[in-house]
């Protein structure tokens, strides 16, 4: 198990290395931070002098080595627009994004799993149809629309929770639901399908033939067998949160996270800062996948140790 874990961690580090290198290629070979920071009609001389100021006139290999050695110590360059270390700016914002992803994941898991189990328990009865209806609605609505609705109805009209900002636990509720509802809907459907399928399998039939109720069998026998798929899919949802949903929702809710920082940096033509945000978010994605692998290994002893 320890050797397996060490291998997984090394593999994850390699993926981070490859992904960040790809980011470097895009930001330094296809274009460069100096060009991006200047208006399109800027003169050749302006560009050359800014490139020199930013050290972009050095050979690419030297720049790449600089980039990599900076990466190891957490130095992601200096934000051109804000004249501060990009990593400092990103890491200041990271806790807010992590809180948001944690909240959204909690909504996803705490709604998705029970709804899926309920739907399977009452297969083809009212609760099943209700869960299906909810899932279809939440899946087809874009997160920003759900967020906007929640702001208008719950925050502005009912005034239960604040509409924006990240002050305390209450402000986390709406954006978490805005992101998590669709994920919960997808997960509920997957869980339901998985459990209904498992319930026909001989081990579940055996459990019920020993006198265990349908609900006990769902919770204690079949759910464990769909848990592996459940965790994998939750991982995908979390991945999509980091790379997409949080960006949109942070803008809609004025949430001070990495996603909004990246959007602002794009408007500021601050390529170094965009690059830093992308590197950090990609690292989060890789960490998520690592956690998923570990969780699956803990759930299912048959998962290959290689």
């Amino acid at each position, binding site marked *: 198990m320890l050797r397996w874990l060490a291998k997984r961690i090394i593999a994850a580090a390699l993926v981070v290395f490859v992904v960040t290198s790809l980011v470097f290629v895009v930001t330094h070979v296809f274009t460069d931070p100096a060009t991006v920071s200047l208006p399109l009609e800027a003169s050749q001389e302006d560009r050359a002098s800014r490139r020199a100021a930013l050290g972009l006139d050095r050979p690419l290999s030297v720049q790449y080595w600089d980039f990599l050695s900076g990466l190891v110590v957490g130095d992601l360059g200096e934000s051109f627009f804000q004249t501060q270390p990009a990593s400092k700016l990103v890491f200041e914002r990271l806790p807010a994004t992590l809180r948001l992803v944690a909240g959204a994941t909690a909504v996803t898991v705490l709604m998705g799993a029970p709804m899926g189990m309920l739907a399977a328990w009452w297969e083809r009865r009212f609760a099943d149809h209700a869960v299906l209806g909810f899932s279809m609605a939440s899946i087809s609505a874009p997160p920003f629309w759900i967020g906007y609705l929640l702001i208008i109805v719950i925050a502005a009209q009912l005034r239960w929770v604040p509409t924006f900002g990240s002050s305390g636990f209450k402000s986390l509720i709406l954006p978490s639901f805005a992101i998590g509802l669709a994920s919960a809907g997808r997960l509920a459907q997957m869980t339901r399908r998985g459990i209904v399928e498992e319930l026909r399998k*001989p081990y579940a039939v*055996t459990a*019920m*033939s*020993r*006198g265990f109720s349908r609900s006990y069998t769902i919770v204690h026998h079949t759910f464990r067998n769909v848990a592996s798929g459940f965790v994998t899919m939750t991982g995908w949802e979390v991945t999509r949160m980091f790379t997409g949903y949080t960006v949109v929702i942070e803008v809609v809710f004025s949430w001070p996270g990495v996603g909004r920082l990246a959007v602002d940096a794009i408007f500021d033509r601050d390529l170094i800062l965009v690059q830093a945000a992308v590197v950090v978010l990609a690292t989060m994605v890789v960490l998520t996948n690592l956690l998923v692998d570990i969780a699956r290994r803990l759930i299912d002893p048959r998962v290959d140790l290689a």
Partner: protein
Amino acid sequence: MSATGGDGRTERLLEVKDLTVGFPTRDGTVLGVDGLTLNVGSHERLGVVGESGSGKSVMGLAILGMVLPPGRIMGGSVRWKGENVLDEAVANRVRGREIAMIFQDPMVSLNPLKTVGAQLRELLQRRVGLQGRAIKQRSLELLDMVGIANPGDRLKSYAFELSGGMRQRVMIATALACDPTLLIADEPTTGLDVTIQDQILTLLHNLSTELGVSVLMITHDLGVVAQFCDRVQVMYAGRIVERAPIAQMFADPQHPYSGGLLRSVPRVDRAATELAGIPGEPLDRAQFPPGCAFEPRCGEAHDTCRGAPPPLVKIAERRWVACYNRPGEAGETST
């Protein structure tokens, strides 16, 4: 192996009457079990034998009041010591504690993600009500009973870490966990090596004698019946076509289908389901004739056979047959 008790000495445990289980399909409802009648007494080993698809597995589950969707119990009754098992409250009490079932493939019938110990523990805790150290003790005792060496180590094993024979032993241990009075064994040795088959049958035989557990042995293999049972019922197309004590069935089969089955008794060099003595295709449940289901394959069929299914009638002491060519004693239809 001796027959245990005649009709006079056994107490009736299970009484199944006119049990009918239907599966809706595009071509109408297929009856997996069709008006089945069956009784099991105490200390009895009853065999139910029939080709694949004759409804044996559907019958086994239906006795516990269970049907896989989209099936439905459409009629008849199942009584356990006089109580109606098709009543959910009774079924909850009876399942596992009074009647326990073991299935063909123990690889998939044991939960793949729970250790042997965990699967025994949940039964002993939730269905028997044992607590603390008693659970561990009883678990070890059960594994020992089914002939598993080093039971302490095996408690920590998962099904995938065990051999086929070992898995079936564990399955039997979980079935015995709640001290049932009747064991329904649905093809418990199919798919196992011949030597292991033998060991499992011997184990079941010894356990049923020592613990006084009745066994309903479901199989397509007459060899298993000969080795294990006191009495046998032949099943065809969801119905019982013949019922007899084991010696009489083998010496003098009455139903044409039973005769065919016996002539095709499995030999090592031939598949057990192959029916040498019976011409025609094995049954296709979607195209049943209105009369006797065996009529299209029967050498003795006549017009009456095409009318309605023949009732199961008593033709001699402890002998019943459902065939128009074997008229029974007047007024004695199946009970």
